[in-house]
């Protein structure tokens, strides 16, 4: 059988959007998108149209994560089909607007790619977030980006978990990609974090340009960290946290956590150990926004995903 049978032919990715300010206090994306709205030269390519877009402008104006509810959890089918009534939370109305402009989610009219720019207080470095282990276009794109960024590390987080997966802003597109760069405090702009995110996007757009021009990308493998479990802080009966992430775990995103390793430290100095049977790779360790979502960190397991060769389908 000819090797041509193992090449996946995919639709051209002509319509690309870059979202900043999905959370109004995650500054890299906000500043990048505002810069590109004013002068788009850097993000222009010949074979695609790139739209920079501020997803949650009211939250950006107040430099707060959200006004009524987290926009990045709001793109459920229930919300997207909710009737326009008074009293609808701001972010639900906004989700419907975004779905109109860049979707509808799940339809053939939806944007091809959306990059959603985020920062985290966790020491995650540069992270690319995928929602599907079978999206070949996305797998090849993250492979390209990782190679281009080397020796700077880009980790890949895969959230395909049936319960922990959530309805993101970017999920409106056919190929959603989350960019998460940290550590950076909310409301703060760090130059190194800003420039890392800018460079990731440059490589991503270069990939799409090459793909749209007919370049064939050979089969590849991508190491990903697959979301397993959400670990909350120990709490008292009133729901207040009774311990902090242990100094041995703090800032150790993507490093192995083994049974018996220190995990939390109580305010009066007692250590709580990780009791899980197998080694996990924690991430989103001590993210500010997740205290209210009952999450101290997420556990992941390492996996190698394989992707077929891809090229643009001929019309």
């Amino acid at each position, binding site marked *: 059988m000819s090797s041509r049978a193992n090449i996946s032919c995919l639709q051209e990715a002509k319509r690309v959007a870059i979202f900043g300010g999905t959370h109004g206090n995650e500054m890299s994306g906000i*500043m990048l998108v505002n810069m590109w709205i004013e002068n788009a030269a850097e993000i222009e390519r010949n074979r695609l149209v790139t739209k920079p877009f501020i997803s949650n402008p009211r939250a950006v104006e107040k*430099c707060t994560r959200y006004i009524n509810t987290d926009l990045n959890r709001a793109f459920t089918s229930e919300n997207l089909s909710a009737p326009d009534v008074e009293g609808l939370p701001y972010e639900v109305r906004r989700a419907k607007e975004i779905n109109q402009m860049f979707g509808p989610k799940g339809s053939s009219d939806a944007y091809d790619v959306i990059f959603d720019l985020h920062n985290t207080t966790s020491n995650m470095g540069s992270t690319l977030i995928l929602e599907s282990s079978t999206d070949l276009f996305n797998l090849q794109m993250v492979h390209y980006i990782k190679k281009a960024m080397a020796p700077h590390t880009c980790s890949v987080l895969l959230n395909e978990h049936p319960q922990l997966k959530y309805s993101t802003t970017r999920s409106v597109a056919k190929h959603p990609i989350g960019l998460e760069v940290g550590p950076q*405090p909310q*409301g*703060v*702009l760090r*130059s190194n974090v*800003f420039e890392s995110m800018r460079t990731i996007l440059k490589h991503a757009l270069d990939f799409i340009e090459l793909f749209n021009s007919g370049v064939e990308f050979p089969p590849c493998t991508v190491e990903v960290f697959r979301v397993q479990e959400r670990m909350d802080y120990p709490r008292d009966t009133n729901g207040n946290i009774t311990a902090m*992430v242990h100094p041995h775990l703090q800032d150790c995103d993507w490093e192995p956590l083994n049974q018996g390793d220190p995990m939390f430290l109580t*305010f009066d100095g007692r250590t709580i150990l990780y009791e899980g049977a197998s080694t996990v790779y924690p991430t989103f360790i001590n993210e500010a926004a997740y205290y209210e979502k009952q999450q101290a960190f997420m556990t992941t397991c390492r996996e190698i995903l394989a992707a077929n060769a891809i090229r643009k389908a001929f019309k």
Partner: protein
Amino acid sequence: MASAFLPALGRLAVCGGTHGNELSGVYLVQEMERQRKEKGDDAWPIPVTTVLSNPRAVKECRRYIDTDMNRCFNRATLSSPTTDSSQYEVHRAQELNNQLGLKGSADAIDMICDLHNTTSNMGLTLIHYTTSDWVNLHICKYLQTKITKVPVRVLVLDVPISDAYSLESVSKHGFSIEVGPQPHGVVRADIYFIMKEAVDMTIDWIHKFNSGTVFEGGDMEAFKFIKSIDYPRNPETLTLTAAIHPQLQDRDFCLLKRGDPLFLSFSGETVKYEEEEPLHPFFINECAYYEKGIAFHLAKKLTLTIPTVQVQKH
């Protein structure tokens, strides 16, 4: 060296959550309240009052509800008439002044330690208004010898107490304990325990002082606030056009000399320090200062000479 004989210190107030999202102080005050429930007033060798300064802001994990409470303790705000529609923090500042003050009176509490965090890489910084409060300066000197995990620095604002606007100015000898770097809304174990040690050592000093220990004077280094520098901004929209330069980021209290990089613009240009006088930047890239138009403050390094102190005997 001649000793200064100073009155014993009666009571210390430890205040957390003056800014509701600076979490080390919030959790430390809660932990101290838990210890008091468990051990009663014997929890500490001196009388300690614990205060959650801005409970509504703490509940919402925000710096403030209506206005920055740590700017509400000047005389004008403390004496202004309030109604139901007045700003929450103004009400609360007046309540705290009643509880811990009245500011400037003989009834004011002896000492307030106000607990803060910063997103800047300032280690442990002790902040107060004057260069002549020997009690405060001796506590700083004591903390510098006892705490070695992080740099311990002294910052003086040189503002007359009558103009002072922050919470600790309500007491007779007040200072702020500022620990960073920590993102707002996050509690880091390492930062929490540095703050706890600073509070524990402050209590320790007061107890030793009250018990008659002689604390030797001498020279100590302090940083005095000179002025603030804002970010480069677009003149029409006022949005930032540059970020703190990577070579300045996290280098609080370094020496800035003419020609050193300050900002890196989004278009790749470096903005440099143009002044003749070398100064020390601090509060570099503090989140809460963007809205105040401050990228960093600049300070001059001083040597202060403090006398030996011991407690006045009756």
